[in-house]
């Protein structure tokens, strides 16, 4: 960890639920939620992209809502329910959103995909049949540098149909 003088800073207890499992840690206040997930919890599916609140690669769900985990401190997630990409799969079966991204070729390098899938999760939990306009608005905070987005739109529509049909 960079910087000195950390010994005088009190660590703070954080108790939260991550992907349905309780988690308790003592953290430095300045630890970002994304670093907490990756470094303290070994959940490296949540990515650090721009680290400036722009790209959305670090998107996770906090109490069902998409947030940029690079723009929150871990201490602020105290008492909350966090879902990361690792929490989408159930009993070895891919979540319909994960399956749709694969089936529609909605990714290339995959770096932005975890964040995109969690933004999609919030969208589809509110509206399983989004229009293209609604999809664009819902993922406007997620940057993809490979796909050109067209297959991502297809994946989100397919995921909505899969969830509705399930």
């Amino acid at each position: 960890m960079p910087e000195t003088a950390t010994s005088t800073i009190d660590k703070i207890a954080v108790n939260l639920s991550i992907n349905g499992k309780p988690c308790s840690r003592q953290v430095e206040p300045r630890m970002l939620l994304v670093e907490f997930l990756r470094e303290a919890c070994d959940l490296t599916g949540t990515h650090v992209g721009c680290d400036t609140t722009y790209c959305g690669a670090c998107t996770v769900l906090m109490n069902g809502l998409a947030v940029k985990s690079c723009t929150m401190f871990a201490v602020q997630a105290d008492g909350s329910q966090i879902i990361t990409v690792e929490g989408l799969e159930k009993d070895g079966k891919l979540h319909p959103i994960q399956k749709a991204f694969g089936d529609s070729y909605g990714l290339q390098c995959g770096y932005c995909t975890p964040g995109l899938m969690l933004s999609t999760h919030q969208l589809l939990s509110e509206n399983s049949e989004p229009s293209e306009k609604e999809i664009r608005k819902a993922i406007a905070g997620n940057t993809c540098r490979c796909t050109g987005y067209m297959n991502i739109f297809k994946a989100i529509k397919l995921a909505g149909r899969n969830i509705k049909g399930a």
Partner: protein
Amino acid sequence: MYPRSFHYHRAGSLKEAVSMLGQLGEGAKFLAGGQSLIPLLKLRFANPEHLVDLNFITGTSFIKEDSGTLHFGAMTRHAEIEHAALAKKIPVLHDCAAGIADVQVRNRGTIGGSLAEADPSGDWANALITLDTMVHCLGPSGARTIQLSDFIKDAYTTALAHDELVTEVEVKIPPPGSGGAYLAFKRTAPVYPSASAAVQLTLAGDVCQDAAIALGCVGLMAIRATEAENALRGKNLNDETIATAAEAARAAADPQTDMRGSAEYKRQLVVALVKRAIQIAARRARGEQVEGAHLYA
């Protein structure tokens, strides 16, 4: 990127937050939604010794209507305003809330935090300045209420004392026959707009009885384009008067060349945004349901 180390304090009430900040002194700051402050901390443009987190205080996030006025708790998130049926009573507020940055930022960012930060490119101050808006504040010596135009003093500067915070934003619902629109142009969703225009018109038939026009991102704070308002007030609303108002808005804008565009480009944007916002505001004043929102690719 890690911010410089700081001590973290969680306030249980707004009153406690104020007294904590007073005790901790000049090196302490309030943390609201954090969508501007946390990036600043990470870049080490701000290096507070203490942060007093307001996010765990209950009862600070609400939208209420009371005798012709909407009240927003300071910690009400942009997304809550975007989705609230009550906020649609003042369409400018919905336009503004629904287009701030992106879903993730709207889920965290707050109306009170946005006003207290007073970023010249922020959305809320520009949208709210066209309305009768009061900012309720709480400090060590008690509560006070400040008209928004007196609250914002300069870029990143408000009437708030160091240990004073916003508790509530109060907006008067415009009379029947009044319509408003807020349009902002940004290059992509997560960035600040290059320019924005807020318009509130009160019409009697085709005659504009009252007009409020404000420009954002083109000065150190939101600019009331009073000459543009005069170009409409008492006049018939038509292409000619709208064009005159838009040209007056161009003259009122005082933009700077930066990575979002040249000053000349921003003036041109102001003309287009004011024209469109007037047209949407007029249609809404006549009772039409028209969509208005942030524009981006």
